[in-house]
């Protein structure tokens, strides 16, 4: 396997895609949103329980490729207990990582396990797989909770 592919399918990614964490419906969720990738049929639902402007509980369900499943799973792990402002900042950093690549010395510290997706930016066709769950989260956090589609020009 060439090195780019090894970067993409890191062991953590394969592990989370095989055994996604926080997977399944969250009963009594006070925020949910759905996301679709109409080009490949990936779909994800993100469920949230909020308390005091922080993410108290977060789960997801859906189906998709290894990258989209692992990204959703890693996202739920990274966001549990985070304040909403922190979640937004994490998305900003993660988005930069998967679209521009790693470039920040403090990234490993601030992004933690999300760094497992640091190989995605080398595969432009797969960026949307990695960001689908995050865009869906963003929609769930906004009041409307509108359904997200990767083919919306605003969604990269």
């Amino acid at each position, binding site marked *: *396997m*060439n090195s780019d*592919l090894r970067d993409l399918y890191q062991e953590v990614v394969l592990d989370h895609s095989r055994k996604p964490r926080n997977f399944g419906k969250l009963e009594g969720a006070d925020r949910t949103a759905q996301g679709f990738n109409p080009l490949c*049929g990936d779909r994800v639902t993100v469920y949230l329980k909020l308390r005091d402007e922080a993410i108290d509980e977060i789960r997801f369900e859906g189906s*998709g490729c*290894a990258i989209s499943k692992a990204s959703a799973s890693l996202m739920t792990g990274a966001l549990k207990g985070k304040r909403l402002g922190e979640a937004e900042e994490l998305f900003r950093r993660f988005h930069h990582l998967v679209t521009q690549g790693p470039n920040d010395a403090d990234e490993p510290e601030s992004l933690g396990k999300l760094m497992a997706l640091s190989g995605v930016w080398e595969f432009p066709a797969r960026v949307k797989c990695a960001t689908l769950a995050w865009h869906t989260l963003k929609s769930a956090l906004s009041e409307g909770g509108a359904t997200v589609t990767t083919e919306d020009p605003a969604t990269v």
Partner: protein
Amino acid sequence: MSGAAPNLRSATAGFDVERVRADFPALHQMVHEKPLVYLDSAATSQKPQAVIDAVTKFYRADNANVHRGVHALSERATAAYEGARVKVQHFLGAAKAKEVVFVKGTTDGINLVAHSFVRPRLKQGDEILITAMEHHSNIVPWQLLCEEKDAKLKVAPITDAGELVVGELEALLGPRTRLLALSHVSNALGTINPVRRIVELAHRRGVPVLIDGAQAAPHLPIDVQAIDCDFYTFSAHKAFGPTGIGALYGKEKWLEQMPPYQGGGDMILSVTFEKTIFNALPYKFEAGTPNIEGAIGLGAAIEYVESLGPPEPRVAFERELLAYGTRVLNQIPGLRLIGTAVDKAGVLSFTLADVHPHDVGTILDGEGIAVRTGHHCAQPVMQRFGVDATVRASLAFYNTREELDRLGRALEKVREIFR
């Protein structure tokens, strides 16, 4: 296998794949430091040098608008454009060149028939019949029309192998069926439909038939008069020609009756603010300056394929290649072929254990192998087989057994990564 080999050799005699490959410049390149294996011809085929040259020559020497000027360049452009129409006529086996309308592609051809042929005939409660293996382009135009007219869209079922259940299709041809629209070859499954027999069944009940030939044109000889279909449409880009051009064949009696699809220049005889007199066939359906370079490129593609000799050895070669690819894939543990019809062309659609097709596609790309992954614009087909998506390796007459061996080895790598 060894027993069948001598027959295969004689059936494919006269077809030299290496010579053919030399005609397609894009095939000869490295992708991720490996020689390209192009197995995505059902999405779009590669183009032979003859097509590239024909388009270039047009712009370098003959570029002018058609059906307009009296000057030399316009006459040359018009002759090339109309010459291409005659090539398409012969390619389809149409009786007359005026039964060939240049369109943007198969989707455009279907929409033209929906708008100008079916729409004026469709009343509340009428029916349009399609099949469960259609591409979205042969579903959505009919859905839109049925919604507008409060008509019903009926769907003929397919078997687990991906073959039409002809008896059930026959039963769905009712007194209110205004059109049967079906593909000649399925893009997601590769199934070749028995279109001659089906057209006969439909005509017995007075139902006109449109055939989506997008996936047949690159693989099979076509004879619209023998099939006796009312409409037949295909895209050039899947048949070794340029994108943005295709053709719609329609029986003259229907085309004559049909109102124009779009209004504009070139489709009129005379215009006053009170009345417009439409041009004769086929110009009535070709409003505006047409895709001249596209038509010329399509003509060159047809001429190129004809230059390879009679179709039989080529068709036999492709059939043998598909059988070989099927054997290669069937040896891979966990691989499930979707679409196992007896009569197939060009398509190997599959899933690999629980590895998502997109992950398969990315890993194959790393090996220099181009395949399509996803729902292939045929989501109802995916639903029928209970999958979200498949990997589709699609073949053309420029592919080789060695390339299919490389596909097999790359799929073993996918299994290693996802073990």
